């Protein structure tokens, strides 16, 4: 489905939801919150079906036809995010409709937990330096492995003459061991 269609659908549903909410708060206080959130249910259902179809086709074919499409992990994550969104909205509607007026108690923390999980996933995924940090960590691990291996072999070759230098720069323990064995 083209991006512009998806965006227009989302915008229309959002607009419809805001209008319903304003009407509920201003004119029709007896409206059910589940009815007010109808655009959200349509939105969730639409995206859930879309994602499940794409996930199933990906699993059946082994790959996506479109090369720019999301990976299998991203699709799984998106379904999880949608699930969290469903849970949050249902719990919020239950709290607003049945719990607050009926004398029952449902903590806001329980209501907000799915939303916090969702937002934390978004924070980690959208962290601006995540790709750079990951590549830097991988590169650092690789270079430290290579440099420690080369340093240990060099110190083994050079022997006691470079012991002072290797001591100051913090040589690998294996090189210190070799130095002591050489000096003895």
């Amino acid at each position, binding site marked *: 489905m083209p*991006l512009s269609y998806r965006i227009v659908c989302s915008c229309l549903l959002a607009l419809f939801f805001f209008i319903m909410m304003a009407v509920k708060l201003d004119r029709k206080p007896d409206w059910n919150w589940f009815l007010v959130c109808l655009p959200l249910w349509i939105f969730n259902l639409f995206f859930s079906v879309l994602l499940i179809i794409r996930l199933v086709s990906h699993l059946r074919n082994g790959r996506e036809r479109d090369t720019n499409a999301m990976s299998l992990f991203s699709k799984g994550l*998106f379904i999880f995010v949608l699930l969290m969104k469903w849970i949050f909205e249902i719990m919020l509607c239950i709290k607003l409709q049945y719990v607050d007026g009926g004398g029952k108690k449902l903590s806001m923390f329980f209501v907000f937990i799915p*939303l916090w999980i969702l937002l934390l996933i978004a924070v980690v995924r959208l962290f601006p330096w995540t790709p750079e940090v990951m590549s830097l960590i991988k590169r650092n691990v690789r270079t430290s492995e290579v440099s420690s291996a080369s340093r240990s072999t060099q110190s083994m070759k050079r022997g006691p003459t470079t012991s002072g230098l290797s001591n100051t720069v913090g040589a690998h323990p294996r090189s210190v061991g070799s130095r002591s064995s050489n000096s003895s």
Partner: protein
Amino acid sequence: MLYTKKEAEQWLGMTVFEMWVHIISILLFTVLVALKVENIWPVSWWTVFIPLFTGVGMIAYFSVIVFIRLFLEHDFKTAGFRVLWSALLLTLIFLFEYLLCQKLAADSIPQGHYSQVMSPLFVLPIVLGIRACVSSN
């Protein structure tokens, strides 16, 4: 999360960093709302809304810096369009946050006028939809 990063950037006309700041501010805001509603930290609504106002302020500052840098690189058209779009979005978001906070804090707007508070939100999806249609052509 329902769109890829590239799609969201294209649609919203903002960078990943700006989206990230918005999400962080919403996260902090929801934590403060939960603390206030449960009476664990009984502060005023203006305090609860501080993360949202700070987020908008930070993004405005970031947008001004980007505008100045684009202007210095003589990319006047891009700089103009970008700053105008950011100003429009941030004004609508800030207006909604301010009106909602005022309504919750003092209830100064007469009863039955939540539509006034939500008026920036009626404009926002229309503007975003128009942008999506224009950019797809």
